């Protein structure tokens, strides 16, 4: 086949604005509809628009059933001309942003609300697990039913064996994130975490221990995607979208997951933005377990494969540190509100580069890299994505 090629076009003046985080709660009787409504109401109020001004909507939620995004429009009284549903768990926000950006760029929509939200009633996590995917049902759950803990325990064990990584190395990530969370008023985890406490935590699925796991909770996160002009007219603090990548089922022949799809597309991510890893001021990775954070440091070019642990040892990952990372505490400390967990980093990164931080601001933060990772279908996470956002020059 002759290749004519189809180079990616840069994003033209796509603005990302109005970071919204509805405070999480551990258990809630409220539904996904309720959480989404609260996020959209806050979003429109802070943008100074009415719900009718939203002509685009992108929804990510595991707990909307039996409704879909379609049913949600009637439920909430919205009449969008562009509607999307992104069922990609931890990659949802990046993917929602990519799609919304192109819709706005093309004029298919002018103001898109992207929202990730989930309910968490008592026992709903167990029910969510039981119907997650066919491969999980057939080939993962019958083996100890560890859920994501069990899957990530295997990846973590293999990663530790391969590169001589220790639990302390993962502990540094978790402790730094807790430090960051203590500056973020909406974090679920409010108590300081020491490395000693991390090491002494009870095992969940060896080598995963308690503080390697996120706390499932209920909550919502949202942001707006529009044009730079509209954002300016509305008087919104905005970040420009510089580049994105997305990949699914990368490296299917790897015997066990040692890298994510970022490793396939990282060069394009930086090339499209015209930046290098050194130019990034704030990094928000998807952190359902610390091992995947370390893989993202490697696969996103901050260090070489196998050097993630050394990178963590030689950097301070707090908001005031040499490598500000997961600046609101990440899911490990802020909580995992289902699909909103995939939004947490993007919304936080947007706040940091637009001077709206709720957590301790990263000094001089202008450029944020946000990465997503989602959907353990059987033995590995399948969806990966990343985006680079840049705030206005100061």
């Amino acid at each position, binding site marked *: 086949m002759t290749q004519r090629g189809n180079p990616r076009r840069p994003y033209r003046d796509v603005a990302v604005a109005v970071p919204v985080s509805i405070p999480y709660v551990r258990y809630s009787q409220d539904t996904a509809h309720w959480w989404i409504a609260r996020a959209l109401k806050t979003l429109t109020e802070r943008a100074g628009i009415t719900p009718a001004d939203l002509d685009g909507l992108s929804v990510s939620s595991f707990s909307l059933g039996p409704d879909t995004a379609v049913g949600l429009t009637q439920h909430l009284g919205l009449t969008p001309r562009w509607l999307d549903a992104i069922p990609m768990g931890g990659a949802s926000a990046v993917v929602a942003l990519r799609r919304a950006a192109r819709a706005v760029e093309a004029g298919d929509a002018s103001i898109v609300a992207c929202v990730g939200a989930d309910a968490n009633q008592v026992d709903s996590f167990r029910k969510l697990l039981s119907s997650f995917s066919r491969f999980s049902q*057939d080939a993962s759950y019958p083996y100890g*039913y560890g859920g994501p803990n069990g899957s990530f325990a295997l990846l973590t064990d293999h990663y530790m064996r391969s590169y001589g990584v220790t639990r302390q190395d993962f502990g540094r990530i978790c402790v730094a994130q807790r430090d960051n969370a203590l500056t973020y008023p909406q974090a679920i985890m409010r108590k300081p975490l020491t490395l000693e406490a991390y090491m002494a935590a009870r095992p969940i699925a060896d080598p995963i221990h308690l503080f390697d796991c996120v706390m499932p909770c209920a909550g919502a996160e949202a942001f707006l995607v529009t044009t730079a002009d509209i954002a300016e007219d509305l008087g919104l603090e905005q970040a420009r979208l510089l580049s994105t990548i997305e990949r699914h089922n990368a490296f299917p022949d790897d015997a*066990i997951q040692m890298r994510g799809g970022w490793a396939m597309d990282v060069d394009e991510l930086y090339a499209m933005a015209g930046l290098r890893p050194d130019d990034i001021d704030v990094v928000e990775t998807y952190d359902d377990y610390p091992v995947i954070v370390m893989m993202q440091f490697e696969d996103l070019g901050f260090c070489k494969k196998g050097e993630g642990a050394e990178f963590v040892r030689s950097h301070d990952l707090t908001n005031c540190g040499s490598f500000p990372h997961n600046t609101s505490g990440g899911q490990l400390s802020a909580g995992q509100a289902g699909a909103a967990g995939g939004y947490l980093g993007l919304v936080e990164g947007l706040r940091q580069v637009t001077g709206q931080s709720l957590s301790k601001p990263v000094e001089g933060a202008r450029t944020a890299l946000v990465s997503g990772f989602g959907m353990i279908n059987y033995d590995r996470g399948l969806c990966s994505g990343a985006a680079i956002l840049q705030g206005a020059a100061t």
Partner: protein
Amino acid sequence: MSVPIERPPRKDPQAATRPAELPPLNRSRSALGMTAWAARGIFALQVCDACGRVAYPPRDACSGCLSTSLRFQPVEGGATVIAETTIRTSTDLYFRERMPWRVGMVRLDSGASIVTHLHGDVAVPGPVRMVAKLDKGGNAVVIALPAEDSDNMADDLQFRELTASPKFRRVLVTDGRSAVGQAVAARLAGAGAVSVFVGIAEPWKPFAGQSELAAMANVETMELDLTDTASVTELAGEIGGKTDIIVNTADHVRPGGLVGQDALATAHQAFEVNVFGLQRLAMAFGPGMRARGGDGTNSAAAFVDILPIHAFANLPEFGFHSASCAARHSLLQCLRAELRPGGVRVMSVFTGPVDDDWRQHVPPPKVAPSQIASAVLTALNEGIEESFVGDVAQDVMARFLADPKVLERELSQ
């Protein structure tokens, strides 16, 4: 080496019995293909007809070439374990009761990655042997075993969940008057069963092998007539609460089809033993076994039925006998579903013609009682749901799977 399990102490009658929870039951239709093979003790995976790729997890299209022509076939179990975990918390009630649980990731020599139960004697990383077994819910699962057998390996608690080992269990063998019943009793008593109760109908009538049976260690004869509901109920009242394994060795064999003069009386007798006898056992012992399926080391484990392979296709020389066995086979399928909620396995041991008085004129190869006893023990130790004992049983099954109608004609010639 595995730590040998210990004989459980006498049960505290006031303590709660652990409920018979089951591991997750839902499977896709493709996954049931693996279960069908595992039921016969074979590790089979889908292999793509077009490109030869071994597919796992079970699926509907090849991830190498998108062909939809995937067929389950036996595959080599050679693999390398590359990662392990010990799961200590779960939202699933079955596993919660049995934590901690060891799980591994293996790479098959043929290329697929498999999340698997990990036998306690497996060293990580290292070579393993993959085998497929049925879990307590009757679905196929795989377990990675040490490349070489280790000491007491059958005592590994995760492995034992996948079998119905007679070790430290109490067994009822239903017909001690027959050579098959006597062989089974001797074999299970020698395999670590705490007691083997052996049913004897009309005990005042002497029978061949009687003194040898009486002399067997750990064997106790009990009056039991499967054609008499009161007799079965009475025995269940006495030992039903502690019977962990039943091996139904009864089989009423007479030649003849539908047309003979005294065919009706023979038919009634055959059904009284082979069909209603099975039902009486299930009625009397089934509820107790089902309630004790999760009850620790000596939980109720299995109901084994030994029946002729002609349950699958009628052998006209023994026409009514075949019909009674077909009914028996059908009812075993029903019983399997009825005992599954208790995690109790129903095992069918299909045999070729047994070398006994009623089949003197049947040409060889015939099956010796000791062969059947070995097959029963293997089925229990390996957790095999359907076994085929002897050349005739295996041959008839192969032909049945090829084409039942052809088999019908072949058996009637």
